[in-house]
């Protein structure tokens, strides 16, 4: 007998089993989010929608807003700092420069969030690197308070997100047709005009996906706001942890993490439709 689809089941089975386990874990979150909290117990009561109505309090709205605000700031600054690096990475003439730029900008991605957060604690603390240097240069008398502030959290988050932003932007920049730039230059456009009117618009889809990916990614950041924010800066992830491990209100923690998931998914769906429209317009124009 000739097998029309050799190994189909062999390939399919592991994937299906894994998908079922993953779906079950997510279903547990959903299930807990509609359960009643029994104070002092890890067991949950009957079904209820109270957890969702409880979100509608100013304190939770503030945490949500703050999460959005920090994520947006991070995405914008990450873009501004990543673009020049991505541009240099793609356009550098020498091979070793390109290799060096790739290594320097990508390796931080793999050291893990605890190492990176800890290194920023060493940078930003009142006896940290930045304050020590400023004091040595006699620029300040009292240490600047950067730890436990929103500024400190954003400074660290921007650095975390840059490798991903650089990868996305570099891909977009490498796809720009150099002939378009050459044609514009030959027709008399200054280098600045070539960049602002040709290169930058052609990389808009990459810019947009970079912003949204970093935005969604930052919304689920945990260790940075936890350790650098130190309880003074609360993002939704910290609230989930607080509710789950300190208050032991698992149903409410589940509701909050479900909302975080929906926000992340929502921003990606938004990106898909925006980039789709943008690419269509670029193709026409």
């Amino acid at each position, binding site marked *: 007998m000739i097998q029309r689809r050799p190994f189909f089941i062999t390939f399919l089975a592991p994937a299906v089993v894994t998908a079922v386990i993953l779906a079950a874990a997510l279903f547990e979150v959903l299930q807990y989010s509609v359960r009643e909290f029994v104070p002092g117990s890890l067991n949950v009561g009957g079904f209820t929608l109270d957890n969702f109505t409880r979100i509608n309090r100013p304190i939770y709205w503030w945490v949500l807003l703050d999460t959005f605000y920090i994520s947006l700031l991070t995405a914008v600054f990450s873009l501004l700092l990543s673009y020049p690096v991505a541009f240099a*990475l793609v356009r550098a003439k020498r091979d070793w420069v390109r290799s060096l730029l790739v290594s320097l900008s990508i390796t931080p991605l793999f050291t893990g969030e605890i190492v990176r957060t800890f290194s920023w604690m060493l940078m930003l603390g009142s006896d940290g690197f930045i304050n020590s240097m400023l004091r040595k240069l006699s620029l300040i008398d009292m240490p600047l308070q950067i730890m436990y502030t929103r500024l400190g959290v954003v400074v660290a988050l921007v650095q975390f997100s840059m490798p991903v932003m650089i990868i996305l932007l570099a891909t977009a920049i490498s796809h720009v047709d150099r002939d378009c730039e050459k044609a514009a230059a030959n027709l008399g456009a200054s280098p600045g005009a070539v960049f602002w009117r040709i290169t930058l618009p052609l990389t808009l889809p990459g810019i947009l996906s970079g912003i949204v990916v970093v935005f969604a990614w930052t919304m689920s950041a945990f260790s940075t706001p936890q350790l650098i924010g130190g309880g003074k800066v609360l993002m939704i992830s910290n609230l989930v942890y607080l509710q789950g491990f300190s208050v032991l209100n698992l149903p409410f923690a589940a509701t909050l993490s479900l909302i975080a998931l929906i926000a992340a998914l929502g921003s990606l769906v938004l990106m898909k439709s925006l980039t789709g429209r943008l690419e269509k317009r670029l193709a026409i124009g």
Partner: protein
Amino acid sequence: MTSHRLRSLGFWSLVVAILAYMTLPTLVVLMTSVNPTEILAFPPEGISFQWYEKALTYPDFQRAFKNGLIVTSLASTAALIVGSTFAWLVHRYTFRGRGLLEAVLWSPLIIPHFTLGFGFLLLGGAFGLQQGYVMIVLAHMVLVMPFVTRAVYVSLANIDPDLTRAAANLGASPFHVLTRIELPLVLPGMAGGWLIAAVLSLTEFTASLYVTGSRTQTLPVAMYNYIREYADPTVSAISALLIIATTLIMFIADRAFGLRRVLAIDTH
């Protein structure tokens, strides 16, 4: 100096400044790890390896490192098996429900790690497996699998379809096509994907915080607990070791398997 030269100089200074911002924290960790005293000084007043000694002999870190090795080797190998077979499945076949299956298995790239970790914590509770290795390995496997799938899928897509077709026409069985033609060509992608998966699993923190317990905690979780209680350069030393190890692994992976291709960074 021409205006072109000037502009180019300005641009490269900007790039160097941004890269300094990106790399300075790493350098500061390395610097403080050899600090001779508990109180940090910049630059350090001497060199001492006492914090490395303390980090390597601290029982919590030792146990966490061992736990991490167990979890990472199991999770990345499981991810290698499931991720590779899944890549083959997607590469070769279309079938009903494929879209849904893909959506579920790619979703860990988007789902916040704390949502996923929390889900596995609750799932573990439902089966009496909370804080046990089974749930930790499953959570890690699901998180790192997309990277294996992607690496293997890219390698499969790069195989000239004529190769497999020719082999089949010359009478090779499906088993031979798979093991003698495709597998050797995909092996570098599998190895690269497996290494990325291992590094990501070894350094994963947020989901691990939810699914591990004090006896099963992995290294990043143990580091987090240490940072919250003590402020000495012990964590700098262990961070420095992690930075050196991951940088080396990624360097080797790039040299041996073309990491840039696996990550889909094309610079040309």
